[in-house]
């Protein structure tokens, strides 16, 4: 019997071939089964945002507040939320995500439980997830408060410290906090002016350093962002003055412009300096306090407008005008000092007193200033006023014990220890300020105004005149009060009054001055300066020195130098007749120059002092 199968049988071979072909032909491949992690992705839960009146949306933190007639909308972001349901106090809300917002209607005041249950796509990337059929539910729990809040934002302090400006405010206590926004703008501008907004998102942070302030009046307003609702404080106006005390000095034959560091120096990105319209330097490092102009120094009193511009350290400069502050000062060589109308040097205490009265531009408040020997202000008072700005004059007794000022046509004594005014007195009516002088024993010489001017001696203790003679020229009184002179006429005390002692042989007298510590009288005429022994009635010395009629001469008791300003300031030593000269810039009769102590002073928009060497 032949076997059923045999390779020698053709049909067997055929069927084997058929089987092989079938096996190859009907391979339909696998089903592309992919291993996918079925764990739902929690990040698909997303963030809940809310918005009042369907405006800007904000993250929901823990509490929502609704007052009467307010409504809000909910939506999700950054997740795969397919739908959500809202329940208030366990009752499903008809909220549908757009047309029917959450309202306070039918809800009693106070807290309510707000539950939001979201249906979230699993995010597994499985077929069911991609088809939107694989989801999970996640519930969020919040508090919905119905009613008004008892809170008013308030900026509690604005102060300058540590090179910047520091603000503090009261903490917002509620859970719908989004941000504190501190708006700063020109405090004098209207509501539509550009403003800078500094944002603090940490509810517990109630202080901020404003690194954008570089000067000027700024109005600060604190606004609490409650998620689309903004609760503002009142505006707080602040200004932190910065007097850079710019000054010009000649260092190594090169003009230097220098200034004091700003109190809020950390806020400055860089600076620039200019003179008039000419820019002197740009991008000056904020820590630099001087620049070398590479020029020869101008003479004293030759002024120009110098400006220092501070640029705030902000990323968006120019958003508000206050990002850049320009400070302009008229400058000449010398140290800046307070603007003044009169200055005296008190040798006993080695201090300078300034009286300032300006009815126009003024970098310093009106008042009386006390400066040390290095011209640092060590005391000042603004309790000083006058009818006219020229009605300001300082006088001191030759021994330096008494200091006086003319105030509203009255002589007032100044307590040098505290710059108060313990006593008023003096003549009624007008009198000339020039030539007014005091003795060590409270006697004053003054000249009345008018064509029939008299020279009078006032006893400050009684307020009464003790003598009155026709004016013969400039007047002065001796330190002991026993002598006074007007023009060439020398008077001596005689009982309760004064009698003419002699008429000195000098014509065209321009200036008279009894020396404080010697029994000598300085008399200047149109061509000479004479030193006269008034007790012995003898001329001691005379020097050729011309004094014009309107040259405002003066005498520096500290250096014993007579001065009269011309195109250069010439100082004549009455010791040896030597003259030293300081170049000055003189424009007509203004400004006036004063040689007091160790300095030559003049007053422009700022006062200046040039040390005399």
């Amino acid at each position: 019997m032949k076997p059923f199968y045999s390779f020698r049988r053709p049909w067997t071979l055929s069927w084997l071939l058929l089987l092989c072909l079938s096996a190859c032909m009907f391979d339909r491949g696998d089903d592309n089964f992919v291993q996918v992690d079925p764990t739902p992705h929690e990040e698909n839960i997303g963030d809940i945002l809310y918005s009042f009146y369907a405006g800007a949306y904000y993250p929901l933190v823990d509490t929502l507040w609704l007052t009467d007639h307010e409504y809000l909308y909910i939506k999700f972001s950054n997740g795969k939320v397919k739908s959500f349901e809202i329940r208030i106090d366990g009752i499903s809300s008809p909220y549908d995500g757009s047309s029917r917002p959450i309202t306070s209607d039918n809800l009693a005041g106070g807290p309510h439980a707000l539950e939001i249950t979201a249906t979230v796509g699993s995010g597994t990337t499985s077929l069911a997830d991609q088809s939107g059929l694989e989801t999970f539910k996640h519930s969020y729990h919040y508090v919905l408060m119905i009613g008004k809040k008892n809170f008013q934002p308030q900026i509690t302090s604005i102060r300058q410290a540590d090179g910047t400006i520091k603000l503090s405010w009261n903490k917002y206590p509620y859970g719908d906090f989004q941000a504190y926004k501190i708006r700063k703008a020109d405090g004098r501008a209207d509501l539509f002016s550009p403003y800078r907004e500094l944002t603090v998102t940490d509810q517990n942070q109630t202080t901020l350093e404003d690194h954008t302030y570089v000067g000027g009046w700024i109005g600060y307003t604190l606004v609490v962002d409650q998620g689309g609702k903004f609760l503002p404080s009142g505006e707080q106006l602040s200004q932190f003055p910065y007097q850079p005390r710019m000054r010009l000095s000649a260092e190594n034959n090169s003009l230097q412009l220098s200034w004091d560091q700003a109190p809020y120096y950390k806020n400055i990105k860089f600076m620039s300096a200019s003179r008039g319209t000419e820019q002197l330097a740009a991008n000056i490092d904020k820590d630099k306090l001087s620049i070398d102009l590479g020029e020869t120094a101008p003479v004293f009193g030759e002024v120009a407008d110098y400006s220092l511009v501070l640029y705030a350290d902000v990323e968006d400069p120019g958003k508000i005008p206050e990002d850049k502050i320009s400070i302009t000062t008229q400058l000449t060589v010398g140290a800046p000092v307070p603007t003044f109308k009169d200055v005296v040097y008190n040798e006993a205490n080695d201090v300078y007193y300034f009286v300032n009265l300006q009815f126009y531009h003024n970098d310093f408040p009106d008042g009386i200033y006390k400066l040390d020997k290095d011209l640092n202000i060590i005391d000042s008072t603004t309790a000083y006023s006058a009818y006219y700005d020229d009605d300001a004059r300082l006088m001191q007794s030759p021994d330096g014990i008494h200091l006086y000022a003319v105030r509203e046509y009255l002589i007032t004594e100044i307590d040098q220890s505290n710059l108060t005014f313990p006593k008023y007195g003096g003549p009624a009516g007008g009198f000339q300020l020039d030539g007014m002088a005091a003795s060590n024993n409270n006697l004053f010489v003054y000249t009345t105004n008018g064509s029939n001017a008299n020279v009078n001696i006032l006893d400050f203790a009684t307020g009464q005149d003790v003598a009155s003679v026709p004016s013969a020229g400039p007047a002065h009184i001796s330190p002991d009060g026993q002598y006074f002179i007007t023009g060439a006429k020398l008077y001596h005390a005689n009982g309760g009054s004064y009698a003419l002692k002699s008429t000195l042989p000098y014509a065209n007298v321009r200036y008279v001055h009894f020396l404080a510590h010697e029994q000598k009288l300085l008399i200047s005429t149109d061509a000479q300066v004479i030193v006269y022994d008034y007790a012995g009635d003898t001329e001691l010395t005379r020097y050729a020195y011309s004094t014009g009629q309107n040259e405002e001469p003066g005498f520096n008791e500290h250096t014993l130098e007579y001065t009269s300003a011309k195109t250069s300031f010439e100082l004549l030593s009455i010791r040896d007749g030597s003259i030293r000269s300081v170049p000055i810039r003189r424009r007509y009769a203004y400004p006036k120059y004063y040689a007091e102590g160790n300095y030559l002073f003049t007053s422009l928009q700022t006062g200046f002092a040039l040390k005399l060497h």
Partner: protein
Amino acid sequence: MKSLVLFFLLCLSFWSTAQSRLYGSVIAGTYQMGDMKALQRDIRDGYIREGIPVKSVTSFSASLQGELGYEIRLRKITLGGFVNYAMTEGRIAYADYSGAMAATQQLKRVALGVKFMRDLGHHLHLYGKLGVCKTFLDIKSETNFSTGHSYGNGYSFDAVGATFEPGVEWEHDVKRFTFFAQAGYEINVNGKTKYDDNIYLENSNNEAIHVNWSGVRVAIGTAFWLRKRD
């Protein structure tokens, strides 16, 4: 009428003297299906864009065809007719724990034609098949989720074409049976793949998509002679 009668008598005499046989064969075929493969790629890319990383698991691979025929042998010439059935498919699929989806392009064809053979000696024959064919295309997608949800849809098309296959046949006779093997190449052209008289299948360039069964054919079969051979 006379000529018809004369033609019938001639055929009868021819039939009475000729050897005839019935045959059946199984054919392994490969297919070009360029347009169908492009369509499959388009469908696959569409799913991938939707985030479902499908893969082509079958792309109109080789398949078995079946063929039946009748032949008359006249000395060294053999004439006959045949009917052929073929099918193949393209399939993209994806599955994971949550369910499975698949999109298939299933193709079936019926061809009807005439066959000519010339004896070359040594049991070898040169043959040629010429016929017309109709192709049926079913495009289906189906998604089944483990939760029990499922959905799917499908569309059916057809196309009419012509086919020509030259090749070589080797035969071995055993009594009244002849076992044979063939090798050839089918050249196939089809008209538009129509959904109905007005709608036909297009690609994204608005070009008509054609079915193309062209490819290598290798077959084995058995023929049964209707009369005992001399």
